[in-house]
């Protein structure tokens, strides 16, 4: 009898142990052994091409952190998903936070998806670092205590590129013809660029909204030709930029071109014979700092091509989150948020360190404008532009290119 009870007990103990092993391993491990980070970014659709750089750079950052012994003695585990569209993005963010217990969510390129993810992040009080959504609205009306932005806001892009356009005499008293991507990002950017023009004495001869799935720009190009603007402005996004550049050069138009939203990969896809104009970037592969050079060399060694600005964003977001976790000895979102808000400084591979501005959680850092080289001067298919010095200049505050207190509508809860 005793023996029987004993056996039964053993069966029950064994069974519950087995259950524990089968049913809850993720939970137990998540809390003790590894730090999970959720990575969401579009991998398909018109932003998909950039998403691949984001994912590769995030993988690389995590591999480097783990090779160096992890964070606070714990390894990092990266959960990666295609965010697809704003609805799917928020569903996946929710699942990562509630089921997989991620410490934070990093990533995104689409401003529309950033908005839905930030709502989930705020509700669950989980840190979200936006690495690619540019809309001012995310830092303005839509700002959230738990959302931070390593990607620059539209105002920073416009003011950075605007400086270079003013130096070229393309603003005051000039007329612009703009093409704008017809979704959240584009609308926001158009608003910001109109504000810039109004403040600096220029006009728009036309501003056209272009659906994200339009591939043929010929009717618009013919219209630009007859409008004879002083400058053609691209507020386009993703593959639209490549299509536009290829066809602009095909039609042989010779009005100067500039853009306020840009990704290096899209210029590479257009090719040295088609790429032209003046464009702002948060980072590019020819920046002359030791950290940037090492990043470019390491990335190229693994993936066979240089990284572009989206890779910079996701790589640095993960690295600075890890740094904050080490500095606070914590993975709790609220502790990280407080640490960021206190103005913690981060390397970012540039000449000056950056920090998140407390008022809207925007990363304050240097930007650059790039100018397309004539096809004959391009040394290879990647080095097809020359870069400006960092903007703002070394003797200026990093905040001069960001939204001013009056322009910013952020009221953090």
């Amino acid at each position, binding site marked *: 009898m005793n023996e029987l009870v004993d056996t039964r007990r053993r069966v029950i103990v064994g069974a519950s142990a087995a259950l524990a092993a089968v049913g809850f391993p993720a939970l137990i491990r998540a809390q003790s052994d590894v730090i999970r980070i959720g990575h969401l970014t579009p*991998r*398909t*659709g*018109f932003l*998909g*091409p*950039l*998403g*691949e*750089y984001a994912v590769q750079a995030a993988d690389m950052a995590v591999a480097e952190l783990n090779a160096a012994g992890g964070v606070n003695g714990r390894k990092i585990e990266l959960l990666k998903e295609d965010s697809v569209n704003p609805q799917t993005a928020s569903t996946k963010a929710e699942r990562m936070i509630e089921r997989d217990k991620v410490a934070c969510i990093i990533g995104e390129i689409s401003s529309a998806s950033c908005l839905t993810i930030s709502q989930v992040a705020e509700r669950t009080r989980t840190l979200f670092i936006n690495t690619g959504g540019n809309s001012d609205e995310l830092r303005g009306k839509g700002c959230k205590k738990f959302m931070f932005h390593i990607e620059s806001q539209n105002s920073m892009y416009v003011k950075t590129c605007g400086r270079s356009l003013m130096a070229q005499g393309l603003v005051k008293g000039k007329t612009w013809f703009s093409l704008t991507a*017809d979704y959240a990002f584009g609308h926001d950017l158009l608003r910001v660029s109109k504000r810039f023009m109004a403040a600096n004495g220029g006009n728009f001869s036309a501003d*056209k*909204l*272009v*659906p994200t*799935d*339009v*591939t*043929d720009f*010929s*009717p*618009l190009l*013919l*219209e630009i*030709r*007859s409008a004879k603007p002083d400058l053609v402005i691209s507020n386009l996004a993703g*593959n639209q930029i*490549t*299509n536009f550049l*290829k*066809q602009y050069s*095909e*039609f*042989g138009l010779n009005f100067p071109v500039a853009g306020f939203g840009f990704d290096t*990969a*899209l210029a*590479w*896809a*257009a*090719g040295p*014979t*088609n790429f032209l104009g003046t464009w702002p970037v948060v980072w590019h592969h020819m920046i002359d700092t030791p950290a940037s050079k090492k990043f470019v060399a390491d990335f190229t060694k693994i993936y066979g*091509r240089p990284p572009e600005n989206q890779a910079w964003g996701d790589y640095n977001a993960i690295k600075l989150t890890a740094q904050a976790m080490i500095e606070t000895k914590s993975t709790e979102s609220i502790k990280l948020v407080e640490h960021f808000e206190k103005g913690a400084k981060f390397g970012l591979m540039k000449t000056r360190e950056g920090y998140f501005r407390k008022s809207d959680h925007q990363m304050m850092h240097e930007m650059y404008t790039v100018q397309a080289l004539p096809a004959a001067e391009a040394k290879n*298919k990647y080095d097809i532009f020359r870069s400006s010095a960092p903007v703002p200049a070394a003797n200026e505050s990093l905040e001069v290119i960001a939204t001013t207190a009056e322009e910013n509508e952020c009221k953090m809860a």
Partner: protein
Amino acid sequence: MLNGLLAGSYYLLIALGLSLIFSLGGIVNLAHGAFYAIGAYLAVSIGSSLGFTGAVLLSPIVVGLLGVVVERLLFRRFYKADPSLSLLLTFGLAMVAEQALRMIYGAPPLSWSIPPELRGQVFIGDFVYPRYRLLILAVAVTCVAALWFLLQRTPFGRVVRAGVQNPDMVGALGISLEPYMGAIAFLGIGLAGLAGVMLAPIFAIHPAMGAEIITSAFVVVVIGGLGSFWGVVLAALVVGVTKGVVTAAGYPQYSEAAIYLLMLLVLLLRPRGLFGERILRFE
């Protein structure tokens, strides 16, 4: 307006093949756009060693042969099945193809440009047009003419047209449609490949480029009417002009919506499309 007519020629190349395969086999080929993308990617691969001409000549043939293989292994099993099954099949095939391109070539778009000898513009009064687009137009017109001749003036075309109307009767007359189906798959899918090569220098080459163009091509086929050769040709031009006119009127943001509205109107007034023939087995 004129630009719209010319723009219609891009849809034409893709829609013709789509219509051919549907008319004869009853397969709604959702993977047609994927073959267009494969055509563009192959052009970049082939073009790097054999140049633009080599790419234009070779890539459509390779894509066409791929089409024959797909027809033999997959489509053939679904001619008599419920159309929703072939819809699922080709939808799956499109996803596999897109992901395969992503795995082989990577997600960032590839760069490929118009060869220098074809660059430049033609000026007609105040109207300017790139020489390269005129070349695309010429290729499209040649394809339409050749296909028309093949279908209307050759014994091959007679069998295909009979097969569209009544495959059982063709069988009863002792003619096997199988080799014809293979040939049609080669032509139809090869045309998608050709469109891919021709458009690669002016559009972004990325894995989802097929999905981008397939919806417009479907709209063209539906507006034109199934089984109707000239219907598809006319519909391609009408769709091109509609987009062009809406954009020129200052509303580029509605240009995509406009073609769906057009499709709705055509379907309300002529449920079989502009020139759709009454095909018993599809009723």
